[in-house]
């Protein structure tokens, strides 16, 4: 059936909850209201107040109690309303979520998911358009998953819920209703750490989350001029290093598209990886298209900030003409 990302995530939650009664959802406005993006629509009605739980407004509380719930034997799937409101929870995420297995020498582990609408491009208010990937990837012990399509979202979320380690699940809000595609009704999983490659020969373009859509549009625009290989990473941590290295060894050229601020962004990590594993195959310096090192601007300037189709096309032209 054809679903958008909101529907695909909703279906994944519903199917997993039907099978496993220890899965509970926690968050702000996720119950009767069905979430501010309607991702949990209908789940409160189906599973009741004990499993779809509106909490007090406290992100640190949501994540902190999720740790305790997980250790007690529940499987919490916590929603933070926007990634701009994950900072209050970072104390718990950094100091505890990523460390429990290690600190307890394997006695305790956290089977929990923290999911949230992520990134910009929807003309939102302040603190509603940031992207937290860089901060989160820096924390040992957690996985960071970023679906780009409805199909990705369903299969990856089911994997995340079943994973024995804590998973951060970043849902690109710009994509929520922008793409509809065929999503299997039955449950399926996509392994966390496997990128999705669309083949080409001349240049590798790497992206994740909402930027995959931008890259696909750039690929359309370039048409037959160059044969573009695109990689949708789907998971930043763990990273599918093989897919990246293999592709760049083949094409010899790479463009990386990253939504957030440039400095220390995940693009920098990818450039380091390519440098370490595929340097001798390179025929041009790697280009990155990123946001700037400024606070995410309000909508009147947001389009100048975000990587656009044109910026990606220009970057591809640059590395091809080098």
């Amino acid at each position, binding site marked *: 059936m054809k679903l958008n990302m909101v529907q695909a995530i909703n279906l994944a939650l519903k199917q997993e909850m039907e099978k496993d009664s220890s899965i509970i959802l926690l968050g702000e406005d996720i119950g009767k*209201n069905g979430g501010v993006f309607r991702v949990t629509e209908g789940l409160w009605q189906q599973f009741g107040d004990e499993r779809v739980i*509106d909490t007090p*407004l406290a992100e640190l509380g949501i994540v902190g109690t999720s740790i305790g719930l997980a250790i007690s034997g529940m499987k919490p799937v916590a929603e933070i309303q926007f990634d701009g409101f994950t900072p209050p929870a970072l104390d718990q995420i950094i100091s505890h979520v990523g460390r429990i297995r290690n600190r307890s020498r394997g006695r305790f582990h956290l089977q929990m998911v923290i999911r949230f609408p992520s990134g910009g491009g929807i003309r*939102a208010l302040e603190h*509603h358009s940031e992207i937290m990937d860089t901060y989160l990837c820096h924390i040992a012990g957690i996985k960071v998953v970023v679906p780009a399509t409805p199909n990705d979202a369903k299969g990856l979320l089911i994997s995340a819920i079943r994973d024995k380690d804590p998973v951060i699940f970043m849902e690109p809000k710009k994509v929520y209703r922008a793409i509809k595609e065929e999503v299997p009704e039955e449950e399926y999983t996509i392994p966390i750490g496997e990128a999705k490659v669309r083949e080409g020969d001349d240049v590798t373009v790497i992206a994740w989350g909402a930027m995959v859509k931008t890259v696909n549009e750039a690929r359309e625009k370039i048409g037959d001029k160059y044969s573009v290989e695109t990689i949708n990473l789907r998971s930043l941590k763990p990273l599918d290093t093989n897919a990246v290295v293999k592709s760049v060894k083949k094409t010899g050229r790479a463009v990386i598209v990253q939504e957030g601020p440039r400095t220390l962004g995940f693009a920098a990590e990818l450039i380091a990886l390519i440098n370490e594993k595929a340097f001798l195959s390179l025929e041009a310096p790697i280009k990155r298209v990123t946001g700037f090192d400024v606070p995410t*601007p309000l909508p*009147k300037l947001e389009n100048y900030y975000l990587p656009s189709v044109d910026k990606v096309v220009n970057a591809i032209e640059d590395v091809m003409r080098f």
Partner: protein
Amino acid sequence: MPRTKVPAKSDMFQILDPEGNVLDKKLMPKLTDDDIRKMYGYMVLARKWDEIAWNLQREGRLLTFAPLTGQEASQVGSAYAMEKDDWLFPMYRSNAAMILRGMPMDLLFQYWSGDERGLKIPDDVNMFTIAIPVGTQIPHAAGFAWGMKIQKKKVGVVVYFGDAATSKGDFHEGLNFAGVFKAPLVAICENNQYAISVPRSRQTASETIAQKAAAYGFEGVQVDGNDVFAVYKVTKDALDKARNGNGPTLIECFTYRLGAHTTSDDPTKYRPVEEVEYWKKRDPIDRLRKFMVKKGIWSDSDEQKLLANVEVRVNDAVKKAEAVEAPKPEDMFNYVYEKATEQLRQQMSELK
């Protein structure tokens, strides 16, 4: 052992009943007829602002926008009690208080239409920027108030927040600091009974929000937030106390958000119409108008004149805001540091 009185629901402070009658003349604050008409004017202006902003948003001329309809008495009553040198720390729903304290309406429109330049509060307006992340402004206000005390300035500081903000660590930590350092802070919780869809009962198991002050070692008052005189009086007393070095106060304005949480919200999903109808009968604007009419200081023609006047003022502000040229892309780099770093200058050149 001395005990701090813990306010319970039954202690809610009121002066005006919903029909606009004064419950006890002795409680009535000293306000001239002119003051009262001004307060009413601000309340009506704020409601017109909401109405026009809502329509603009629907036309795509504003981003998401949070109306305050129903909370006019909480904001106008408290902000009107402030003295010239006092400071205000607003949240995203504080438009009425902000306008009353001198924030130009066109700047507010500019901000809510997605332009940072609307956040540049004029130098002569004692106000901090609008907090969007819930509750984060409370420690800022506590620190500012503390700073005023250290510098021996007789200034009161008012911070606004909603009932859900009291669930955050920021509330606890901010009020705790204010208590420990006896900061001249007046913390005003506009308890409009909802955090988007989540009812007040999901934020705290305590009977009132005001009673939380007892744990921080200072006074908490619950006041009828739809009664502009009651709000004015408790805020004025709290500010006098603060300026005189007697520490902070927590004020819970018990009120109701008559409209949607924001333009993206559909309140019919989570609350019954009868509840909204009940509160419409307790409308703070109607209540004050009834009082004024009974007192003989307000007529139909005053009302008509005021309605026409606020409409013109709000529309003028919209026109002014929309006449401003679009921000230049470079603008996003200009205030990151005192002086842009080399890296930022390079990034800025990529805009060309």
